[in-house]
Every structure is written in C-alpha cells, then in structure tokens.
C-alpha cells in the first residue's frame, strides 16, 4: 500500500470521466481524495454516459488525457472487458461474489433501487395507478429514452414488475406507459434539476440516490417505491488497461472501496447511494449508520436484471416504445 501511494503521488494526476459532482457525492469524494494524497483529479465530461466513457478510452488511447478509471453501467462494462485491467482491492473479500468479475476486471461499486420522486404538493402517493389520475396531467417523466438510458429502461421495468410482469418480459410496463400517455400525464422532457425546479417535471422515475431533495435541488420532494418492488442497479468500476496513471488509478480504487469513515464507501452512502460493501460494513460496524438510516425503505426481494433480461427488454423497447408513447 505504501509503495502504491508513493508511486501514485509521483504520477501526481488522475483522469476520471463522467462523474458529476452532485451525483452520489462525487464532489466530496473527489476533493477528499485530492486532499488526502495531493493528487490532482481531472474529471472529463462530467455529464457523459457510460458509452462515452468507453469511447474516450478508445479514442484517447495512448495519450496523457485518456481516462484512468471508469464508472460505468453493467451492460457497457460487460461489452468492453478487453479494454480493462483486472485489479483486486484490499477489501475484495467484502464484495459479494455476484457483484464482481471473478478476476476483478470489473467490480460493482455503488447502486440503488428504482424509485419515484414527486413534489410533496401531491400529498402522499401510495400506488402506481394513482399516477393515471387527472391531477397528474403532463407531470410524469423519465430521465431519458429507455432505449438509450439504463435508468429509464429500469424505470419501465420497475413499472412492469409492479404491473405483474416478469424480468424477462417488459410488455406490461410499456402498456402502462401507453395508458399514462393516453391519460395525458406522460411528460417526455428529460427530467433534470432545472425542470424539477421549474415545476415542469413533478414526478420523476429514477434511482433512489438521484431522487433525493439534495440531488434534484428542491426541498419539497418525496420518494415512493411500489410495495414489494425492489429493482436494483449497480454501477461498476474498471481500470483502463493502458491507463496513463496506473498507480493513481489503483490508489483511487483502494480509496473508493475503503471502509474508513471518510473512505469511498461511506462517502457514497452519504450521497444516498448504496455502497457495494454495505452488508459487510453493517456487520463489522464501519458503516455510517446515520447516513444508512436516511435511505428510502425498500421491501421485497431485490431484483437485478441479468445481461440477457436487460438485452431482451432493450430489444422489445426498440420495437415498441415509440409506438406506445409517441
């Protein structure tokens, strides 16, 4: 570890990509790391997508600007393993086996559950079908096109599960959104903090850690998860195998998976995301209990889409989504 710190300090710089400062507490994760190790972090295209991260690895390969580490969705991670270097952090054994590649070529880092955030002016929402009512005219939004954005695909899947569908067949979810559109309640604007503040997207499907008042930027914001529906999604870390700062990249990973009070795992938790080592940290009492208590309550058995289920859903959406809501 000491050798790694020394080598990383010598490199002096770390290139990360697509880490918005307001997303899952990345702002303070970045500044804590910089302060602790005296290494400068360059965050390229903070609002980029996972695919753009991988594209940058390819197009900037061999330059000093190339990203050292990636924080990407699972579909993109699995499709691009040839670009990554395997690495096992020192807390490797505390990461559940299902959430890492056996050789450490990708490791899930943090995630959450699909949830519905809404303005508290609507009172308390207790069921999905309430959203079909007339008081929600033009108010219900996703945060992207479900054929392109993972969060939006999972939003449709969450509705699908709540409507009696299975993870293998997303049709019920698409049908529900067609009803939402017919009721005039579907709002196709991509929900952002700005649209929420302007009051144009009052009800937003997104991961629970992106549906926090602190993230969306309004205080009167509540979260609802249909009872018994726990659709989870985790992002993964991967190291560019041709990283211009290989030691800093590995030190960053050690920091992100550290269970220290100001380590990456607890910092993510403070940002409302669920760190991958949370079960182990709950047992060994290193978890920030105050932050953990603030997470929305999730009931039911957690469901995580497999690669095949996610691909089937994407293909179904490609053929049917525009027809249902266009």
């Amino acid at each position, binding site marked *: 570890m000491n050798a790694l710190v020394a080598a990383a300090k010598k490199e002096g710089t770390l290139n990360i990509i697509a880490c918005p400062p307001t997303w899952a507490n990345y702002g303070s994760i970045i500044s804590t790391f910089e302060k602790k190790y005296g290494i400068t972090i360059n965050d390229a295209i903070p609002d980029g*997508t*996972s*695919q*753009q991260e991988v594209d940058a690895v390819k197009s900037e390969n061999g330059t000093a600007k190339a990203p050292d580490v990636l924080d*990407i*969705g699972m*579909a*993109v991670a699995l*499709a691009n393993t040839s670009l990554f270097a395997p690495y096992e952090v020192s807390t490797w054994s505390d990461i559940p086996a299902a959430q890492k590649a056996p050789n450490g070529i990708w490791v899930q880092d943090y995630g959450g559950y699909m949830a519905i955030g809404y303005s508290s002016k609507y009172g308390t929402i207790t069921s999905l079908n309430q959203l079909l009512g007339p008081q929600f*005219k*033009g*108010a219900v*939004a*996703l945060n*992207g*096109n*479900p*054929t*392109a*954005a*993972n969060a*939006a*695909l999972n939003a449709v899947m969450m509705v699908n599960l709540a409507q009696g569908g299975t993870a293998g067949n997303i049709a019920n979810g698409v049908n529900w959104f067609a009803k939402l559109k017919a009721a*005039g309640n*579907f*709002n*196709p*604007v*991509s929900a952002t903090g*700005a*649209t929420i503040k*302007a*009051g*144009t997207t*009052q009800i937003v499907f997104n991961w629970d850690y992106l549906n926090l008042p602190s993230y969306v930027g309004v205080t009167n914001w509540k979260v609802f998860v249909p009872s018994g529906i726990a659709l989870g999604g985790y992002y993964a870390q991967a190291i560019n195998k041709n990283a211009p700062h290989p030691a800093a990249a590995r030190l960053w990973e050690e920091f992100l998976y550290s269970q220290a009070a100001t380590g990456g795992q607890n910092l993510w938790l403070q940002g409302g995301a669920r760190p991958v080592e949370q079960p182990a940290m709950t047992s060994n009492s290193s978890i920030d209990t105050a932050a953990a208590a603030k997470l929305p309550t999730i009931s039911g058995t957690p469901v995580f889409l497999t690669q095949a289920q*996610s*691909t089937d*859903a*994407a*293909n179904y959406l*490609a*053929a049917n*989504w*525009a027809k249902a*809501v*266009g």
Partner: protein
Amino acid sequence: MAVAATTKTGARPSRAGRRPSAPAWVGTVPFFAYVAIFLIWPTGIVVVDALKNPNGTWAFSNLSEFGNPLVRGYFIGSLKLCLISSVTGAVFGAILAYAVASGDPDGLIRRLYIAVSGVLAQTGGVTLAFAFLVLIGPVGLLFHASWYFEFPWGIGLIYTYFQIPLMVLVFMPAIDGLKVQWREASENLGASSWQYWRHVGGPLLLPAFLGATLLLFANALSAFATIQAWENQIAYVVPQQISTALSSEVGLSNVNEADLLALGMIIMVAIVMTGYALLLRRAARWLR
C-alpha cells in the same frame, strides 16, 4: 482565366504571366483542402461504415434497413418536421422581409429588425426549448398548450422561432434586388399589382425563395439540441436515433446503424438539392 485574358489583350505581361503554371491552381488549394477534409472525407467515412458490420466486414444488406418501418418512421418524422417548419418559416419570413424592405432602407425599424433577426436566427438548443416549456408547457406561465408535446406541432412551433428570422435575413437581399423601375415600367404598361407579382416580381423572387426554403429545410434537418431538449424519451427524427445508436448504454449502441442513418440524411439532402436545381432551372429560364 485571368492569365488567358491578359495575354489575349496583349497587355503588359504580369508577374503571373512569367510563371504560368503554379499560381493558377495554387490559389484553389486551401478551398479544395478544406472541402476534402471537412466534407468529402467525413462523408466517405459515413458511406463506407454504413455498409459495414460492427466487426468491420462489408454488409451491403444494411441498406435493407431503410425498408424497416421503424427506420422509415424516423425519416418520415424528420421530413414532416422539416417541411412544416421550413414552409411556415419561409412564408412568414418572406412576408415580414417584404414588409420591412418596403420601409425606409436606412430607417431605425429596418436596422433594428435585421439586428434582432440576426440574434434570433441563432437562438436554439436547450435555452429555446426550455423557454417554450416554461411558457406553454404542462405548467405554462402563459397557458398550457395541450398539443405542446404532440409531434410535430409543438417542436414545429419552436423551430419557427429561429426559422422566420433566418428567412428574413436570407430573403431580404433578394427583395432589395427588385428594382423600383421594373414596378414603374409594368405600371406604365398598365399592369395591375397582381399582374406585376404574377409576371415580374414573383418569377424574379421565386429562385431566391426556393433557395431560402431549402436552407431552412436543411437547418431543421440537422438541428438536434433543440428537439432533444424539447423531449428526449422518444426518437421522432433521424438525429435523435443517431444519438441513441451512438450512446445507448443498454446494449443498443451500433455505430454502423448511426452511419447508415447519416447516409440516409445525406441522400435526403441530395434529393432536395436535385429537386431544387431542377426547379431553379425552370424558374430561371427566362433570365437566359
């Protein structure tokens, strides 16, 4: 041409005349290099990659994708939006341009109008879509237009916001080109106002009008940021689907599909340009 003219008239030999071969074409190098690097080369990449598989082998069968109803839908969407916004923009812009041009050529109104049009024609993207969303969207400050999210009406309205000023800018010079003597001449010969426009003004302005409409059409075809900010949960037009094909994180990203769609847009522009050239030839026949 210049060199030939110099020698033919027997004028004093210029410096260019003494070194005949180089200067004549060297001057065109920057232009052709520019065109090659920024137009021909990228177009070539698009065409080649559109006919390949993701693994790099030739796949001319990709072209059959144009028969896929989903893919056709994106092109029909683009066509609808471009036609609506360019024709509306052209008609209203032309009327406005005429109204402004018939005023005092050095007047304050005209200068103000041109300046404002110059700004508005460049307004677009997130700011414009957001402005309309806040004004007439679901919780509109002005009112709630129930058709705001209906394609192509809501986005068509937003596009006219920059199409009309652009039309004013590009069409104004053509109206200025109408000589007042022509009008006087036709009136002296007993022509009515309708006859003047039908036989003199109209035919004179038609090529410029069609050309400007084409410019507006292309302007709407390539616009992406505005429609993406209007809505981005459904792909209605080709550029939106190109974006999905380039950046999908749920396994639908396919660069070759993006290239194929771009090829379709190139073909679309080529058809419009050809149609325009044929129209222009017909409209301009009397000029020859």
